[in-house]
């Protein structure tokens, strides 16, 4: 789960990383109140999970209540690269003497944590990595050892950051590692990490990705999740425990396992069609999960045909078939379905489907055959209506 900037700052603050005092709101009047509380000049920042907010006019510096109100009214509701701004973060505008970059993530190749620090922050770090790679200090940390203050000092010492703020930056790196490790984050990034004219170091931005698998041991994340913005279909899918990503083609895809689902997208593409979505039922899906998947796909108006591609292992094909039968009883499907079942209890599953005697359900014996049939049906654009 990606956090918004304001959530990231709350997350950082809970691990003792200094941030600017401020608050989040969706009301223009409240923006004025917060700005007055934190003191002018203040900055009003759009809360969207997309880069380039500043260029799009989503970040404004304000020096009095009138400007704060005008900024709030222009930013709230603004569209930034397809994201509507629903909330803004308001904080006291910091005086900046220098901007650095700090991040920690897992390096999958080395299978250790990777700390990166640069004295060239405030700009896109990719461009620094390209034009001036030696300006980024990289240090692998074994998770058994963690990041000690001693090692943090070595990293800072190699970065070219002036020595009078070494200790402040090193302490923040240690806290950032704590947030990453104990906080179960996949990524923590501060860009920029600033130094004020008083030589104080603090985080001016916060980018945090939390590990969804660790949700069970972080009840405090409930608040983050409730603010997560998904479109109607994505929300429905997530509530049903389905791994769903909407696309813009006409063949709805349902498969078990991420690999098989991706492969199904590839095969549909290879026979000349295009997928309307990626949907992975996950391992051990029962009939109810299959029913939910069909319900989700059925709400997509672009779908002209559905391809169900199941290779049973821990998932049983007869359960999948029963899920299809249940779905037909609950909802009026608007597209024909092509089904391919193999693996655990496949003959039982195929028998359940053939007992349906439906003209809108086709059973194919191979993945390619099923893809061809689904694409053909999607192109014919079989009329919607009561398909039973």
């Amino acid at each position, binding site marked *: 789960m990606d956090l918004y900037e304001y959530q990231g700052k709350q997350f950082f603050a809970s691990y003792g990383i200094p941030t600017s005092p401020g608050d989040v709101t969706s009301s223009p009047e409240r923006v004025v109140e917060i700005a007055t509380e934190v003191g002018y000049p203040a900055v009003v920042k759009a809360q969207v999970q997309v880069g380039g907010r500043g260029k799009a006019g989503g970040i404004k510096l304000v020096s009095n209540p009138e400007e704060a109100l005008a900024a709030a009214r222009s930013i709230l509701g603004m569209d930034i690269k397809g994201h509507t701004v629903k909330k803004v973060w308001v904080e006291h505008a910091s005086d900046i003497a220098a901007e650095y970059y700090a991040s920690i*993530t897992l390096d*999958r190749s080395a299978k250790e944590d990777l700390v990166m620090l640069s004295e060239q922050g405030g700009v896109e770090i*990719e461009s620094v990595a390209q034009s001036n790679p030696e300006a980024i200090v990289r240090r692998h940390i074994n998770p058994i050892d963690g990041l000690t203050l001693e090692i943090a000092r070595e990293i800072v010492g190699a970065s070219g950051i002036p020595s009078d703020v070494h200790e402040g930056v090193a302490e923040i790196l240690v806290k950032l590692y704590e947030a990453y490790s104990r906080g179960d984050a996949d990524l923590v990034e501060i860009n920029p990490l600033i130094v004020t004219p008083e030589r104080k170091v603090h985080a001016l931005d916060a980018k945090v990705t939390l590990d969804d698998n660790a949700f069970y041991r972080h009840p405090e994340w409930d608040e983050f999740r409730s603010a997560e913005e998904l479109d109607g279909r994505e929300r429905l899918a997530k509530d049903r425990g389905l791994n769903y990503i909407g696309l813009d083609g006409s063949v709805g895809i349902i498969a078990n396992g991420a*690999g098989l689902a991706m492969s199904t997208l590839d095969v549909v593409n290879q026979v000349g069609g295009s997928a309307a979505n990626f949907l992975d039922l996950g391992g051990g899906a029962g009939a109810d999960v299959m029913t939910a998947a069909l319900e989700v796909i059925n709400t997509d108006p672009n779908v002209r045909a559905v391809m169900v591609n199941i290779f049973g292992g821990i998932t049983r094909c007869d359960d999948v078939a029963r899920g299809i039968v249940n779905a037909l009883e609950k909802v009026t499907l608007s597209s024909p379905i092509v089904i391919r079942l193999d693996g655990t209890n496949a003959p039982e599953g195929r028998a359940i489907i053939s007992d349906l005697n439906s003209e809108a359900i086709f059973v194919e014996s191979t993945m390619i055959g099923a893809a061809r049939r689904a694409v053909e049906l999607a192109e014919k654009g079989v009329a919607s209506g009561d398909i039973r």
Partner: protein
Amino acid sequence: MAIFVDENTKVLVQGLTGSQGRFHGLRNRAYGTKVVGGVTPGKGGTDVEGIPVFDSVEEAVVATGATASFISVPPRFAASAVLEAAAAGITFVVCITEFIPAHDESMFYNVLRRDFPGTRLLGPNCPGIISPGRCNIGITSGDIALPGGPVGIVSRSGTLTYQALYELSQGGVGQTTCVGIGGDPVPGTNFIDCLAAFEADPETKAVLMIGEIGGSEEENAAAFIRDHMSKPVVTYIAGVTAPPGRKMGHAGAIVSGSLGTAQAKMDALREAGAIVAVNPTEAGEKMVELVSSL
């Protein structure tokens, strides 16, 4: 011969008394696997259809002489189960558990690497391993595999592993061993470990490798194939048309660079001399064709 497990491998099931552990543990035994014991703390002294259950892996190892373990426990217990198995002297650990927190995973990976170099971990989040006709540890349906070789299979995706087994068996081509390494960020066993084992196994004449987008394991495997493999390798990479995955922010983009796309992986494998198929069926067909010419 087969790699990693064969008809002599004695296997414990950690979590045998749970519903998944029981279902798949008994299925593995019915396949012919030597399932010699189960481990569930607090249930020592009981049994599951004749398989004795112990309180700890250590007791189970002393009583049965097991050298392999099949872990089927919920995510929150997985880290301690893996480390308990290693500490008790288990040398081959298969962990099928899905949804383990990433920090737990990289922690036990690094503890094994530092303190238990003699223990190989397969997974987590993998379907397991099957040496057809000899040993099946995990959740693969034994009936889709065909004994007798000569093909070794290694795959990151569970369901595509079954698809690969099925395609080869339908084409009359048997397998020596099929290893599902799992799709998590920190797999205990990687492509190169399996390629090296297949290269050294006299019964394996060719290898089918199935990868997917993300990470750089396939690129590393390509370099290994180029430098160290004398046996032919057929590959398929899933995800050519997949939507871009969740962005790991700028830091992630820097770590992986241009690596990670299906196209980059296929190009690297082709340049390394592997045969690259565009879908699982074609991979199966190309392997059947290749085996008939050996």
